[in-house]
């Protein structure tokens, strides 16, 4: 084969790979296109303000207000972070700074196993064990915002812990040595130096955990109660944006189906906002 032939073949291969590379972009584009094409006309018809701010969701009667669900999704995400974040952080700090490497070697694989357990299993165990506890000792029907936050918090623990552990472990020992040589105790070294240095990784862990909490659907349907009201207390049942799509997807048609796609648009923006915050934090750390 002549040199020119080889060069032409190389160029062709490069072009093929370019096409392949755009495949992931293409699927994202297709999904986004679909959701916007189906959802936007509905928002146009009903009005953005009515769609986002009305609390009345009664699609068979023509009411498409998702405010109650936006509030529920928001609180569930915040709550899951409150339960899973600090607990996960404490666990990872313990594993990296205070535990022996033998302990770490046992726990890390166990965490990866837990990360793989289907979310519906968490939801089911939540229904069997947590819901009666909340109902009998705290009140309300048991299926509630609180239960959802706790279960989702537990669900994101493996993710938060493993990424935080990686970030903390990546902080060079020299940082810690420097702190010790200045007379710091282990805890002082940890919270003043190590955590600070691992900040961007920890934030990534939290944001990824948050992303998982927002997107969770089937487990939430099992434990949240799916009521169409703004929760006035953590013991009230809630319905998230994701649960709503899942509950109604099978039979929605026409304007109703478009409303579900419009809900998808809202979720899209939610998640994209999370992604942008994460990249902003990560970039800022790197610049420093």
């Amino acid at each position, binding site marked *: 084969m002549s040199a020119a032939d080889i060069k032409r*073949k190389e160029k062709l*291969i*490069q072009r093929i*790979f*370019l096409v*392949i*590379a*755009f*495949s*992931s*972009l293409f*699927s*994202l584009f297709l*999904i986004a296109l*679909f*959701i916007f094409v*189906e959802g936007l006309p509905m928002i146009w018809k009903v009005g953005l303000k009515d769609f986002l701010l009305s609390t009345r969701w009664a699609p068979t009667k023509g009411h498409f207000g998702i405010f109650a669900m936006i509030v529920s999704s928001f609180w569930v995400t915040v709550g899951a972070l409150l339960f899973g974040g600090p*607990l*996960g952080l*404490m*666990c990872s*700090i*313990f594993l990296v700074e*205070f*535990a022996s490497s033998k302990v770490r070697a046992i726990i890390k*694989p*166990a965490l*990866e*196993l*837990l990360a*793989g*357990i*289907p*979310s*519906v*299993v*968490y939801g*089911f*165990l939540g229904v069997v*064990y947590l819901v009666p506890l909340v109902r009998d000792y705290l009140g309300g029907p048991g299926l509630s915002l609180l239960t959802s936050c706790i279960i989702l918090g*537990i669900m994101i*623990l493996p993710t938060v812990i493993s990424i935080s552990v990686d970030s903390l472990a990546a902080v060079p020992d020299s940082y810690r040595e420097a702190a010790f040589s200045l007379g710091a*105790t282990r*805890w*002082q070294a940890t919270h003043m130096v190590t955590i600070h240095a691992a900040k961007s990784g920890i934030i990534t862990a939290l944001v990824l955990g948050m992303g998982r909490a927002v*997107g969770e*659907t*089937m487990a939430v349907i*099992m434990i949240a109660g799916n009521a169409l009201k703004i929760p006035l207390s953590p013991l009230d049942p809630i319905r998230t944006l994701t649960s709503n*799509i*899942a509950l109604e*997807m099978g039979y929605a048609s026409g304007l109703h*189906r478009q409303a*579900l796609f419009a809900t998808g648009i809202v*979720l*899209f923006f939610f*998640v*994209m906002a999370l*992604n942008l915050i994460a*990249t902003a934090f990560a970039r800022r750390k790197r610049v420093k």
Partner: protein
Amino acid sequence: MTPRRAEHIALGLMVSGAFLALAILFFIIAVIMIKGLPHISARFLLDNPMDMGRAGGIFSTIVSTIYLLVVSLVIAIPLGVGTAIYLTEYTEEGKITKIVRFGTECLAGVPSIILGLFGFILFVIKLGFGWSVLSGGISLAIMILPVIIRTSEEAIKSVPQAFRDVNEVLGGSKWQGVTRLVLPNAAPGILTGVILSVGRGIGETAVVIFTLGTSLRTPFSIFDSGRSMAVHFYILAREGISMSNAYATAAVLVFSILIINVISYYLMHKFVEGRR
């Protein structure tokens, strides 16, 4: 508050936090194993579900799950590894790579229910595939694509530049360098990504239930419907059809993930040793 005191309190907090977190997580595995293992038997794994899942086993769901994963991997691996090869070997950092990476990250963040909605409307209804392994496989492939791209990219990047330099010195084309030197060396890393995706795919419910469907039949053709193990567990548990079978299905799922993780660790070790 002396630093020593703070140290003790902090240590106490960290230990209790860690203990609580780990205790909860191990409780979950323990419950599933204790309640599920006694009901697993060869019959359970090889019989089909009968009487809506109250009796019989889970064989058809195992077949559905494997079939679904195979189809999604057949689609996602070539696309994902190809994308990673492009990003690392065939271009420099620039606008194109930034766009592709951003797209990949966004795709990774799409909530699974939206993928389910998309798959249901596009593949099941509009394209007429119906509830099928095909609809489920394509939808699942889209879901695991970002993971494969990300891990493949890491794996390919970590192949030492020396390999590519040697290829150039010996007069090989880029394509030869990629297929004969880079890819085989990046294989374990890529395999890890594949195994990670399998782990995710096995447990996925929201995407699968709306695209593959819930039929208890064993799928044969790619246009057949089926029911994955995770969906079967969901239905059994929800409807209270059979608690023992539900726990047993969950235990089988946990075991599968355990085996997959063990295999991936073993492979990683073997290849890392082999390289040395």
